[in-house]
Each structure stands twice: as structure tokens, then as C-alpha cells.
């Protein structure tokens, strides 16, 4: 049996922000400010989206001197599809709640 889970409004906001320019790499602080989420809410969402394969992450390749490389995020093809199909109506197929909890 496949269980589904409705996306939260915060997750939808993150997906929508990333979908505005799917090819662009974004860093967390900037993304959080854009969608009005603090780090305590944003990072669990980013982690879950990465775990589900909707988001890919990489490290900044050429940071300015004196500042460490930041983590950057953008939608995967599947993430772009989910965001593009209308995130507000989207119900994600896949992992159960217990699996998602177990990821941590």
C-alpha cells in the first residue's frame, strides 16, 4: 500500500520559491528570508526535500576569502515537476511518516 502525505504550506512556499528559477543554486539564509521562514523551520524542510529526492544540495565552489563555503540548494527534475504541478494540490507519494521520522 502506498501512503501519501500532503505538503505543508511552508514546504509549498519553499518549493515555489525554488521553482521560480529551477536552475539557480540558492543558499538557505536567503531562501528563508524570501519565504519568511526562520532557520528552525527552514532546515527541516530542506532536509526532508533532499531526503525525498526533490532537492539537490552542493557546496559553494568559490566562496569569498574569509568565509566558508555555504550549502546551496536547487530543485531536482522531480522537485521541479512536483512544484510545477501545483504544490498546493500536491500529495506526495512515497515514504510514510514513520520513515520520515526515522530519517533523523
Amino acid at each position, binding site marked *: 500500500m502506498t501512503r501519501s502525505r500532503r505538503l505543508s504550506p511552508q514546504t509549498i512556499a519553499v518549493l515555489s520559491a525554488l521553482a521560480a528559477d529551477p536552475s539557480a543554486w540558492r543558499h538557505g539564509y536567503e531562501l528563508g528570508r524570501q519565504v519568511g521562514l526562520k532557520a*528552525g523551520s527552514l*532546515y527541516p524542510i530542506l532536509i526532508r526535500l533532499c531526503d525525498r529526492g526533490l532537492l539537490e544540495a552542493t557546496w559553494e565552489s568559490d566562496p569569498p576569502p574569509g568565509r566558508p563555503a555555504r550549502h546551496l540548494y536547487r530543485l531536482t527534475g522531480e522537485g521541479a515537476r512536483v512544484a510545477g504541478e501545483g504544490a498546493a494540490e500536491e500529495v506526495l507519494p512515497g515514504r510514510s511518516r514513520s520513515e520520515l521520522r526515522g530519517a533523523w
Partner: protein
Amino acid sequence: MVSRRDAAGRLVASVAHLLPPGRREWGAAMQAELEAIGPRGERWRFAAGCVRVVVTRPAVWRRTGYPLLVLALLVAGVHTVAGVSYGPLRWGLVGLVGALLLVVGLGRVRPFGPVAGGAAARGLRTGGHLLVGALAAEAVASMAHKTNHDIAGVPVYTVMFAGYLLGLAALTARRSPATTRTLIIGVAAGGVAAAGWTVLVMAFPPIPADPSAAVLFTVAGMGAAGWVAARRGGGAAELLAGACAGTVATLLILNVFSVLVAAGPAWLITPLVPHALTPADRLAGSRIEIHDPYLWMLLFGWLIAVGLCAAVVRRSAVDGVSADHAGPVPGID
């Protein structure tokens, strides 16, 4: 990584260490992000959010809660026995508490750990530890209030409770051959057996002065668990489910017994001190004396738990190669 190392940076760096190994990259991401934020107030708000992310993760609670709980129990145990005036008894009780906590710590390393990933294994291990802990706390408190210099109970209780803990740890370890179904059958049968004994005692008081009925209910629970488990699981499942049921039933019955004897009404207590001066003295004395025969119940369950431990460890060693290759479960450690 170049770090600004103000208080906010140190805070995030500290809590990032609490993340499980598979999630450390996210801790590094938060630290790097913080380094790019300039305004002091904004840095603190971001750091507070990062702390919230880390400390609200169940995996972090499991990782840090375990040693903190052990430390708290050690402090509580030492505090309880600090007032014991007889030195050998005081240090013996400290040794008992320390030894049991050491055994609990063994539950993190092979062949007793780490605990398997399912809710059944985690629940059984946690519940079993609580039941053993309650009995151990009662035993320590009882011995701490003794007025004589008898310390024979210290090594006996240490070995007994350690046996239960090891049996439960082996049964619920990741390398244990017990399946979730086996554990559920064992816990259910043990729970029903203990409930049956409790109903019998309440319906036909007082609490019997010998543990025969408790043993009979436990054996019945073991048989039922073995029978149910064998229908689809074969001989190993039958043995494990039966032993699991026996261990669970014994621990539940002894805990119910302790509560009823300590706090139950007078009509539940068999008069065992007929020559006491007053009815109140007779009742108080009987509440103490009725514990002695039930030490046989403790021994009976200990034999089951130790047998269970030996069977699981031997089976785990046989299956060890394939289990080793299974690798760690993300987020479980």
C-alpha cells in the same frame, strides 16, 4: 572552515556535534550560513533556529538522552544510599547501581546492541529497562533502610537484575534473530499472563504468600506465545517468543506485586506476622515478609532471561556474518 567564533558561532558549532554522523553535513551547512550573516541580532536569531532544529530531532534525543539518563540514575542512586551509615552496605549499593548502569551501557555494543530499528524492539527495550529499574530502585531503597548489617542481598540483586537487562538487550539488539512479530507475540502473551495474575489476585484476595500462581500464569503465557509464534515462525521463533513472554510476564507481575504490597489495601495482604502487638504492626510486618517468597519468582524469571540471552547471543554469533553486512541503519545510531 574559517569561523568567526563569537558566542552564536560557538553555540551552533557545539550543537552541531550532537547530530548523528549521517546528518553532520547539515550542521556544517548551518555553521557556514551563520558565518555569512553580519548583524549581531540576526546572527543570534539564526543560531537560535539552528539550535531548535538540532535539539528537536528524535535521533539527537536518543544520542544524548541515553548518557544523560545514565548519569541521572547514577546521581539518584548515590543520593539514595548516601544516608546509609554502614559503610560496606553503602558502597555495596553504589556498586549495585554502577554495575547495572554498566550493563545498560553494554546495550550499545555487540552482541547486546545497538538496539534494532523497529518500534517493537525499542519499546520492549525501553519498557523492560523501566520495569527492571523500578524493581532495582525498590530493592536499593529497601536495603538502604535496613537496620542490620546484612549485605547478602547486594550481589544477589546485582546478578539478578543484570541478567534481566542482558536478556532484554540481547533480544532487542539489531543482530538478534527475533523478528518484530516474535517480539509482539512475546510482549502480548507476557502482558496477558500478568493481567491474568492481577485479575486473579484482585478477584480472590489476598495476594498468595507463595508465587505458584504467578509462575503458572507465566508458564501459560510462555506456552501460548510459543504456540502462536511456531505457527509461522518455526522453532527459533517459538523459543524466543516463549522466553520473551516469560521475561515480560515476570517483570510485570513483580512490579504489580510491589505496588500492591506497598500501597494496596489491607485486605490484599496475607497476614504473615500473627504475633505482632497491634493490627497495624501485623500489617506492616506482613507487607515486608511477603516479599521473601516472591524472590523465587525473581529467580524463575532470571533463569528465563539468562537462557534467552544465551540463546540469542549464540544465534547472533552464527548469523553474525550476514548481520554485519547489513550495515548501520541511518539515523538509528
